[in-house]
């Protein structure tokens, strides 16, 4: 018999060594429901600006800015995205329910809203779609109706209540058993803080400095903070000293630059910067620069501070006075240089499946350095060393994994395989039995156990292991195959042929078994 099984791998049918997309760059969908009875939807994501190409996963409709329409927040493989709803304003009702009996969140409460002669319904929930929690508030678009005729709520207890003549465009809080609704205005982002669309301005944009030299606002390769200010802006004056101190404290790791938008009186601008103790470079805004950062027309809300990451990608815009804490927190979030251990492991797995175990080893060792208390990377490292023929290193790594997680059946199975290949058969038997203890009666543990016994010429035990495997999983092709080998070794040719035929029926793509069967049939015929 040959040596032990390989460590557990991935389904080769799905395994792909080549790189490329898989249903990549698919555009998200917006199935539009036109006015009136709708015999069908019309997919029009481009029309709405929602035909995003990210590998989408989660999505939450939520009124982030409090302006009465639903914005859309998405999370996909490429990261987070927020789409601000800029559609023409229409009336709406926002309902917040509080139950007095049962749980106060009133999950499952069934709500009917009548406005403008139309009755809509919805229910209170906090999850929807895929891996997403959304606000429990209910949002109803009311079209042209500027008032809510009636709201009917069937509470989770079955009690039904009705409220009439409520205003539109408000947050309406309805408490179970309270006939009066509480009505308030939604908290809203100030109009002048509405977020900007992505514009071409980056730290590489050039301008003329206070020193008269023209150059880029900031050096590449490090985070940058660009502060737009003017001599007549009071909040600019307030925030400048803190920015100056912060820039000094962070040193060369972060580029700071100021852009004075009313640089006509250069002396006044210089004086203000000096008085604030600001030592980082200052520039004078010109038309092109203003257009790059504020769009055509270039009118700025002051102060405005743009924060970029080290790749020059915009990370946040503050169209208001900013605190040094806000900037510091943001910059700190960009400062990490470690990858996530899980990502290292996933990548290591891919490399191992592509036959590149040597490249996987340093990634797994890196993962262990970051999170040394986890068993999984040790176990995978053991598999990598096994693939490279370094059996003692493999054994040591898997043993480490088992020390951290003694009940991991597959770690025991893999350790058994490593011992088996190192001809430490006694240890291999112990580990396969441990795998059985932790993972239950499975063919994948019993078949290699039987093979070790066979190798030790403990025929009865070997046969018992194969029979147990077949009893546990009658469709295990491997169990039938190795039972056949044992029969063959014992000269029981008819049984061997029977078992191998069964194995091949279960797994017709096993070319090795097919070859054996051919030889065996020939021999038996002779």
């Amino acid at each position, binding site marked *: 018999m040959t040596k032990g099984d390989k460590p*557990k791998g991935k389904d080769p*049918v799905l395994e792909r060594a080549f790189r490329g*997309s*898989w249903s990549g*760059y698919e555009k998200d969908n*917006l199935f539009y429901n036109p006015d*009136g009875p*709708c015999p069908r939807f019309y997919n029009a994501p*481009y029309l*709405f*600006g929602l035909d995003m190409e990210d*590998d*989408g996963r989660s999505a939450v*409709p*939520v009124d982030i800015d409090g302006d009465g329409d639903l914005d*859309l*927040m998405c*999370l*996909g*493989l490429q990261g*987070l995205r*927020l*789409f*601000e709803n800029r*559609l*023409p304003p*229409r009336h709406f009702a926002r309902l917040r329910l509080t139950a007095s*009996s049962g749980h*106060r*969140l009133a*999950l499952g409460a069934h709500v009917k809203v009548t*406005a403008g002669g139309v009755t809509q319904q919805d*229910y209170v929930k906090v999850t929807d*779609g*895929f*891996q*997403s929690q959304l*606000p429990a508030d209910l949002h109803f678009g009311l079209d042209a109706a500027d008032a809510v005729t009636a709201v009917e709520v069937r509470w*989770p207890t079955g009690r039904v209540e009705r409220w009439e003549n409520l205003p539109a465009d408000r947050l309406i809080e309805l408490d179970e058993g309270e006939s009066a609704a509480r009505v308030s205005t939604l908290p809203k982002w*100030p109009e002048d803080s509405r*977020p900007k*669309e992505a514009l071409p301005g980056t730290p590489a944009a050039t301008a003329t400095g206070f020193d008269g030299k023209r150059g880029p606002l900031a050096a590449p390769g490090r985070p940058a903070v660009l502060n737009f200010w003017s001599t007549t802006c009071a909040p600019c004056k307030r925030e400048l000293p803190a920015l100056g101190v912060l820039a000094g404290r962070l040193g060369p790791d972060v580029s700071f630059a100021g852009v004075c938008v009313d640089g006509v009186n250069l002396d006044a601008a210089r004086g203000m910067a000096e008085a604030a103790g600001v030592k980082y470079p200052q520039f004078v805004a010109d038309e092109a620069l203003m257009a790059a950062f504020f769009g055509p027309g270039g009118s700025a809300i002051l102060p405005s501070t743009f924060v970029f990451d080290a790749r020059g990608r915009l*990370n946040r*815009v503050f169209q*208001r006075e900013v605190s040094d804490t806000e900037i510091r*927190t*943001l910059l700190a979030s960009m400062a*990490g240089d*470690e990858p*996530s251990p899980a990502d290292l492991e996933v*990548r290591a797995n*891919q490399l191992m499946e*592509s036959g590149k175990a040597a490249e996987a080893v340093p990634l797994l060792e890196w993962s262990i350095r970051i999170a040394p208390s*986890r068993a999984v990377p040790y176990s995978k490292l053991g598999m990598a060393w096994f693939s490279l023929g370094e059996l003692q290193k493999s054994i040591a790594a898997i043993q480490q994994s088992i020390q951290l997680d003694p009940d991991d059946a597959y770690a025991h199975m893999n350790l058994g395989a490593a011992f088996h290949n190192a001809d430490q058969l006694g240890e291999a038997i112990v580990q396969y039995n441990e795998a059985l203890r932790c*993972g*239950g009666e499975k063919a994948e543990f019993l078949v290699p156990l039987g093979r070790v016994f066979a190798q030790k010429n403990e025929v009865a035990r070997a046969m018992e292991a194969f029979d147990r495997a077949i009893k546990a999983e009658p*469709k*295990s092709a491997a169990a039938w195959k190795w039972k056949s080998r044992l029969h063959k070794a014992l000269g029981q040719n008819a049984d061997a042929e029977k078992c191998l035929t069964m194995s091949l029926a279960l*797994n*017709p793509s096993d070319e090795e078994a097919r070859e054996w069967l051919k030889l065996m049939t020939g021999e038996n015929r002779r």
Partner: protein
Amino acid sequence: MARHGHSAGRLSLVLVGIASVGIAIAGIFLLRAGKPELKPGKTEDPFLPRPEEFVLDITKSEETFEKANSDVKRAFVKGLRVRDRAASMAAFAPGFLGRFPSRGDGVVVPDSDVVLRAMGRQETPDLDPAKLLDRIEGFTGDWTSVERTTWRPFEFLLHENGTSAFATLHFQLAGPRADGTRAELNATLETGLVLLEGTWRLKRLRFLEGYLAEARFRPFREVTDAVGLHFNESEADRKIQADIIDSREIVVTGGLTVGDWNRDGFWDVFATKYFNQTVLFLNDGRGGFARESGPEIPPEMCAFTYLLVDLDNDGVDELVSGAVFDYEGTRARIPVYVRKGAGWEMLRDRLEFEIPVGMRDVNVQTIVPHDIDGDGQLDLFLGCYKHRGSSQSEFNHLMAFDGADNLLFMNKGQLRFKEESDARGIHGTQYTYCVMFWDFDGDGDIDIYEGNDFGPDPLWLNRGDGTFAEGKGHKFAEGSSYTMGCTWADWDNTGEFSLYISNMYSHAGNRIVPLAAEISPDLKSIAMVLAQGNQLFEFDRKKGTWSETGIERGVNWADWAWACLFWDPDNDGDKDIFVANGYTSNTDSSAPDF
């Protein structure tokens, strides 16, 4: 070390084909050519007859498809996109004839936001190439550019002579107009193709149905960068993640938990990346988000999903994690984070449950709260996908039952829970992605819908006492689906709620499943349903029956779909549907798509 049996493997490949695109998968088939299984179309239209006999060898058919599609896209479609009429003209075979509507054809669909004109298959004069292009340009002429082109065949029938073919496809042109609004033309086309001097060309083109949509509004705008909504991974992590995606490995990444964390009236976001990081983005009420520390969660304990709800009725929300950890013998635990002073404390032992010995990596995809027993305390249903031992040998892509056991934690008060899924009749180990609570049978108590990958979506009907029985035979549970997301609404104010689920539409699957001669008609029919994508289930109160209407409502084709949502973005009082999609996009957008 192939683990698939022959027939199971073949079926798996068909199903993988549904989930993939292109010759890489089709090339695995080794099917013989034979008699066609498809009946000739009813229309005996001499303009463009559907072939009665065609190649059933999937490898040959798909290889030819790749070449033919590439030739037509490179000339005709590219020409439309860059407005190079000569390039488009090169795509036509001598004697080409087309039938395509004019811009004013069809009927206006009344709507106040979108100018919609629906066009069916209509008798138009036979058009030569120049006149066909004139008609298409009639739709796009007032656009400042053509930003989007789609040409995606979902049926390809290759004549046995190998030099002519028939294809049905999705076609789209979209572009902006000078006033900042947008327009798009979507259609289903039939084409006849011929191979001439090594290049496939269009011999016939017929518009089957479609619509022109022109917005009266400016679209949503993306403000991610301005509001500061970034994970800010390290550069090392970004590179490794790009490598992982480029090698087409990642399935899911993590979820969004939107709630009002600091009770200031603005919605905040707790975003998670599985096994990587969690970030709390606090809405600052002034144009963006501030990064704040939520509970300290090390990378290895970052879950796919979190739930923020008040579990002990003290008016303060707890955070429930979806990370299963602390495996010990036959027990495993899930943390709950509670507020302690200004910070958070992790309670390790509140959500504890039994697992088979040795089970690891139980993978929770959704946590849905509901007060099931009416005691005023929220119980938790955890939809679980798989564990380390799942999807191993003999994995059945059609009906997989080796996923993870779902969990139902009943709230016993004082933040103590007891797992009672089996005791309450909820059983099975499928690959659950989404869960929904509603009184589906209208008997006054709450039922549970379970959306599963690789199998049926069971409905658990409440017996009236908080225990559940499987609603066997219900329309939702019919057949198999690759359900990733689910949403429930009365979308057209008819008084009835509908269920919409996201599955996986596949152009490749639609092309190759009908050709797969060696799988049984039953399996083929299930595979075809899978390939046809998302499903909409509607209730007919008069008949008292549910029916599946995704195709007739035009909401089935949404590619490899994940989140799906009924919502009303334009506040017009009826609900539209958003669907997020895509599996993995290589960082090089020109890399092949499999």
